[in-house]
């Protein structure tokens, strides 16, 4: 008898907890409201099932508890009932999949006009690269990394010369413009995670991964790493500043390009950079994503 009461109380308690809980999604700052609505639909369907099934459980435990003289009912199966339950479960599943897959379809379809920005992860910091006026990120790979060429750009690729390099751990994005985030890792798996954007994706060494989004709210947001990457995992932070186009342009103009890095390098380090180009022909040379 206490068990039936406890289960009913846990159901009511869970619903109350949901209503008064101070913890819910952060205010969204990107276009991914479709992900939030898919989550809401899933929550409503699952929440309904949780309440109905567990109240049924509590009711059954209460109503059919053992009492002297009480006997169970013998009924091996009821095919009609089982078919009906299967049908309604199927409806619930479709109800969740429809918004879930619709949102996913958008998630995997990058808009044509999305600007490209690269985030590079390493233990345990973030760097970034913008394609510059030509709109193309130059080829890059870890075999090109030298002390001056920390992001490993191919010095022989002309598309890389105007690329803008940001190593301060803070990136900027113009508000309201779709952006394709291309992701590279120098060492182990990482994950580019800004809770307010909802979107996230792993960085995988050896390949280039991506996702896209449109920042919709100006402000400062924190970048976290969401894939375990060693002892500094919890301290691997970066920042995104979302601002209007003017401020963004101004900020971008103040950053250094790869061409400038090459020009400023001493002859010896420039030689070292170009020396890496000899070994770069092969499967590990990432082309422009």
């Amino acid at each position, binding site marked *: *008898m206490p068990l039936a009461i*406890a*289960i009913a109380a*846990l159901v009511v308690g*869970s619903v109350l*907890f*949901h209503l008064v*809980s101070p*913890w819910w999604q*952060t205010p969204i700052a990107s276009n991914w409201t479709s*992900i939030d609505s898919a989550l809401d639909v*899933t929550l409503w369907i*699952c929440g309904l*099932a*949780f309440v109905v*099934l567990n109240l049924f459980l509590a009711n*059954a*435990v209460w109503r*059919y508890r053992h009492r002297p003289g009480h*006997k*169970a009912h*013998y*009924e*091996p*199966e009821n095919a009609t009932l*089982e078919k009906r*339950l*299967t049908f309604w479960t199927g409806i619930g*599943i479709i109800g*969740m999949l429809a*918004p879930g897959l619709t*949102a*996913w379809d958008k*998630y*995997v379809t990058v808009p044509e006009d999305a600007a490209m920005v690269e985030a590079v992860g390493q*233990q345990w910091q973030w760097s970034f690269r913008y394609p510059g006026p030509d709109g193309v990120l130059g080829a890059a*790979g870890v075999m090109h*990394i030298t002390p001056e060429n920390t992001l490993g750009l191919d010095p022989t690729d002309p598309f890389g010369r105007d690329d803008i390099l940001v190593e301060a751990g803070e990136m900027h994005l113009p508000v309201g413009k779709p952006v394709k985030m291309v992701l590279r890792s*120098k060492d*182990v798996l990482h*994950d580019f*995670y800004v*809770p307010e954007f*909802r*979107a*996230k994706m*792993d960085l*995988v*060494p*050896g390949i280039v991964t991506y996702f896209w989004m449109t920042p919709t709210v100006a402000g*400062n947001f*924190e970048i976290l790493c*969401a*894939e*375990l990457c060693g*002892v*500094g*995992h*919890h*301290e691997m932070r970066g920042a995104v500043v979302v601002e209007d186009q003017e401020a963004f342009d101004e900020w971008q103009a103040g950053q250094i390009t790869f061409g400038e890095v090459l020009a400023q390098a001493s002859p010896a380090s420039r030689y070292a950079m170009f020396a890496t180009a000899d070994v770069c022909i092969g499967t590990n040379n990432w082309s422009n994503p």
Partner: protein
Amino acid sequence: MATTLADDLKPLHHPKTWIGKYVWSQDHKVIAVQYGVTAIAIGLVALVLSVLMRLQLGFPGSVPWIQPENYLQYVSMHGMIMVVYLLTALLLGGFGNYLIPLMVGARDMVFPYVNMLSYWVYLLSVIVLVIGFFVPGGPTGAGWTLYPPQAITEGTPGYSWGIVTMLVSLAIFIIAFTMGGLNYVTTVLQARCKGMTLMRMPLSVWGIFTASIMGLLAFPALFVAAIMMLLDHLAGTSFFMPTLFSFGQTTDTVGGNPILFQHLFWFFGHPEVYIVALPAFGIVSDLISVHARRNIFGYRMMVWAIVIIGGLSFLVWAHHMYVSGMNPYFGFFFAISTLVIAIPTAIKVYNWLLTLWRGDIHLRVPMLFAIAFIFTFIHGGLTGLFLGNVSVDVPLSDTYFVVGHFHMVMGVSPVLVIFGAIYHWYPKMTGRMWNKTLGQMHFWLTFLGTYAIYMPMHYIGILGVPRRYFALGETAFIPDSVALANAGITIAAIVVFLAQGLFFFNMIWSLFRGPKADPNPWGAASLEWQTPDTPPVHGNWGPKLPTVYRWAYDYSVPRPERDFIPQNEPPA
């Protein structure tokens, strides 16, 4: 009619020495206890690790010697031990060994010697695992998923030695499991007594049987992944290793793919969830039926649901990898297959509920655990739909929502079943009865305590708090209330941890001082309760094997005076 193993033509060779009886034993019941005790012992290590983790999360810095590397080592070892060395070993090696021959009416497993080897090789894998705690650098801290490259690169605890003992131990475990698994499958197929058709078997046997087949198909993927990573680490191959720039140096590995490891790992890892869940599903079905004095509702549907879940579970593995960087178009397929698997799973839940409906529910301790399992499994199963529904997974993946979900569904739920099962079969295994009050206290603290631990985690996860973080630090979007929740969760975890003392005290004390148990205290119809001796002796059945005339669920059949008919009772 052809002779089968079940025709009982071979004489039994009873062990002649104490060592033959209790150490190098070939009796499935002794091996079951050996498996069970070893699994629970190593599980206690994992339990202690979880308390250490919770201390750091709830009261950061309160234990000064827990550093980030220690924390990650606790995370990794806790996860791997709980999933593989406790749950898999206990449900299949422990309950599988004990229940299969008794429930299908066999004298033993069909390969008793291999069965014995299975346990000793398992023990070896546990020893190698424990050695990992003492090697230079300590055990691996790569997470229980052991993702390369970080599992074998600098910056991860135990990247040089700990990962080797972990991978070697897993490979040994898989060898042990293969010997056991072949035995379980063959015994079910070949050694059933007369009349025990497949569709008369108790659902416990169905669950363990299906899980064993799945294990035989899934563990090889982990085996090859472990060997390949060992080669990457020790022999300089590049299966999973592209060229890296790690700690100021370019590695000489070329062209490997870290995602390949994830596919192999989860091709094992997702079926593994059901390798743990299906035996628990089966066992809980029997517990509910016996203590509700009612046949399991929709038996045939329950069997088919087990088989369908087993099959489908091989088609859903990449739902662990939606944001792994694999081709994102796979998401469509894996979201559909994942949510479809919810249908047979839901049918099982409905049928458990419908078994209780119009039953005669005796709320004995095993039944308390079984009913609590229904509650926690509904919770854990439903939150799984969030994570399976691909786009919804994107914000939730790698947050505390995931931690809450999988602990509800494959931590708390199977463990509640295991407790229920131990209380349920203890009188048969030992011939004595445990203390009821201690059992009830253990139940309430465990059930309510674990819900207090994991329920809030879902909400912290929806907020976006990432998992596997040693400390949350100063993070703008995380309010102070999260620290308060973490402290509360830790206190609940310590209470649950201490409550397990009640269980161990009860089990050990009752072993010596418990009142003598009735051979069939619950009035169960299945065969293991009809043995001539309690506890059953070597050979199980005395001079003659039983013959089965009916299914295992003849409870409260309208006519007879008793409210159950044993499976081996001839029709009137």
